[in-house]
């Protein structure tokens, strides 16, 4: 297994910049999810790591060896395609054994390793079936089998669960993570689905317009989003933004939201006056009659264990995740209270998060 190091990687197709100077490191045995909407450059990044696309500039290191311009076949990596790309003219056994065939592994050993791999993935009963008749999940497992049989340096996966039914996807998310734990392989996984990324990855890189907006653990990304984009992309429903106009001083512990003072984590920098947004996750909102931030109930969505209540305030609609046993009338006036330790402040013009004690934890902890 090995470490993947990306340095200032950039890819341009004509005038279109697909990936903008990206740098990150995937440590040995780590599971990285490249997360972002379609067209954000995550698949291009993956294809450059694989050698299917050559970068315009930048370097790619596999185990500190520069492989930037090596052929795909010389990189010792495995790739799981979104559409699986199982060879339709071969049966399951030959599909899984195909990578070994290229290395000149003796037939008996190929047979043994195919069977061992198939057992690991619980597909040993369909080895002699044709791949065209397989169900989505089994195709997925065959594609995984073809990837892991060679014991490559790392695995690259391009939305491998994208074509599966929602119900089955959850089963596969679980299986993939379990597989990763067992074989402990460095993995880069491309997805547009935040739940997949959160559930499986050790680290997540959130991409947007070819730029990595944030690189960190799922907890960091969720609790301390580096930008409004990340805050909005992750979480369902996403983080609420309550806009206010103000400047900030280093050491400030509160802001004014519509003339109501709201306690926030200690601000760590001076910010010139401008349009700002207070970011608050739905689960960090409580309903309190004493609170001076008030609004009218606009709608609610019952989710069983809890409910999402939308409240129309002077600063916009705010969604709160609260206990399911309270019921509301539409239009009922409620007071909102925020958990002061969890609030984030963003500069609306640049979208970046303002340094505060919330983020200080990132550096020290």
């Amino acid at each position, binding site marked *: 297994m090995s470490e993947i190091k990306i340095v200032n990687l950039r890819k341009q197709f004509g005038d279109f910049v697909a990936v903008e100077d990206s740098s990150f490191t995937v440590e040995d045995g780590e599971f990285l999810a490249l997360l972002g909407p379609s067209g954000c450059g995550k698949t291009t990044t993956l294809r450059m790591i694989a050698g299917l696309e050559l970068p315009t500039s930048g370097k790619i290191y596999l185990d500190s060896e520069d492989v930037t311009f090596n052929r795909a076949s010389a990189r010792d990596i*495995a790739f799981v395609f979104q559409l699986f790309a199982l060879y339709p003219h071969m049966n399951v056994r030959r599909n899984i054994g195909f990578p070994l065939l290229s290395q000149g592994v003796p037939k008996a050993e190929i047979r043994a390793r195919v069977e061992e791999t198939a057992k690991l993935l619980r597909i040993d009963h369909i080895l002699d079936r044709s791949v*065209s008749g397989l169900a989505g999940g089994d195709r997925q497992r065959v594609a995984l089998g073809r990837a892991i049989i060679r014991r490559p340096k790392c695995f690259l996966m391009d939305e491998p669960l994208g074509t599966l039914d929602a119900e089955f996807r959850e089963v596969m998310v679980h299986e993939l993570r379990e597989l990763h734990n067992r074989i402990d392989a460095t993995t880069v996984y491309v997805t547009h689905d935040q739940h997949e990324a959160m559930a499986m990855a050790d680290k997540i890189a959130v991409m947007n317009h070819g730029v990595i907006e944030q690189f960190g653990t799922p907890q960091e990304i969720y609790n301390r989003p580096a930008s409004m984009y990340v805050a909005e992309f992750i979480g369902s429903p996403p983080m609420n933004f309550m806009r206010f106009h103000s400047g900030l001083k280093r050491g400030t512990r509160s802001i004014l939201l519509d003339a109501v003072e709201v306690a926030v984590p200690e601000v760590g920098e001076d910010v010139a006056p401008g349009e700002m947004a207070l970011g608050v996750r739905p689960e960090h909102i409580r309903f309190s009659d004493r609170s001076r931030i008030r609004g009218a109930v606009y709608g609610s969505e019952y989710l069983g264990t809890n409910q999402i209540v939308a409240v129309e305030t002077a600063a916009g609609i705010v969604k709160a995740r609260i206990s399911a046993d309270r019921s509301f009338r539409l239009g009922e006036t409620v007071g909102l209270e925020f958990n002061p330790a969890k609030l984030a402040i963003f500069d609306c013009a640049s979208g970046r998060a303002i340094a505060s004690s919330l983020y200080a934890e990132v550096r020290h902890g």
Partner: protein
Amino acid sequence: MSSVNTAAHSVVEPTPTAKRIAGTIVILYALVTMIPLAWIFLTSIKSPPDSISYPPKVVFTPTLEGFCNLFTTRTRQTPDYIQALPPPTGTCDEITRGRNMVIAGPSNYWPRFGNSLLIAFGSTFLAVSLGTLAAYGFSRFRVPLADDLLFFILSTRMMPPIAVAIPIYLMYRQFGLSDTALGMILLYTAVNVSLAVWLLKGFIDEIPREYEEAAMIDGYTRLQAFWKVVLPQATTGIAATAIFCLIFAWNEYAFAVLLTSGSAQTAPPFIPTIIGEGGQDWPAVAAGTTIFLVPILVFTIILRKQLLRGITFGAVRK
């Protein structure tokens, strides 16, 4: 509910009436196309007088005379001479003597047929091989001026090939390619390769790139990936293209008449010359034509599965 179900016709399932009508049309069409073939075969086993009788005979005594005349050259002899010969050694010998003739030797039919096989299959193989490689290149790589090149390739088809017969005739004489199998193979390849490139490019475009990319990541070179992954999936297209190329090369008449006369002559220009030898020998011509049809028939039947298989609804989902 049940009344709705019985009254409704599914969009995908044809009704029995529709099936019957479709079946009738197919059978009628098959009959119409097969009548000339049947007529050629029947003529080949008629005697010369039966073959030209009017109204045409449908009931007649079959004879192998046509085939005998096709395979042999004969000389006319006096009845006394024939009487003095030892007993006939085979069916053809007997039939020939019945017409007051003796077999002088084998005809040129089999050598000409052999030329046809060599030239048609040779040029088909070349056209399909070159066409597949070119089509793959056009399909997968950013070829400079690809559209112009493809148009240029197609433009060779924009006039009937025979329009350039005279320049080709002169060139061939200059290069010593006249009346050679190599010359005919090159000529038919040149005509067919444009068709092959265009047909195969369509088929190869349909094969997702992911297969080759997967193979290249699995440790294969591009050429190996092409050979092991692309080609097996292009068999349908290759089979269809090969049949089109073969039919053209096999049936081509005009260039064959113009450029071959002796050792490289193909069957199409040879068959009509049978008429001249000893009267209008229609059964021999029909026999030659019947045998001439067999290779195409066999080739088509062998590749029928590939042709019918259609698009592999394989492991790539769209």
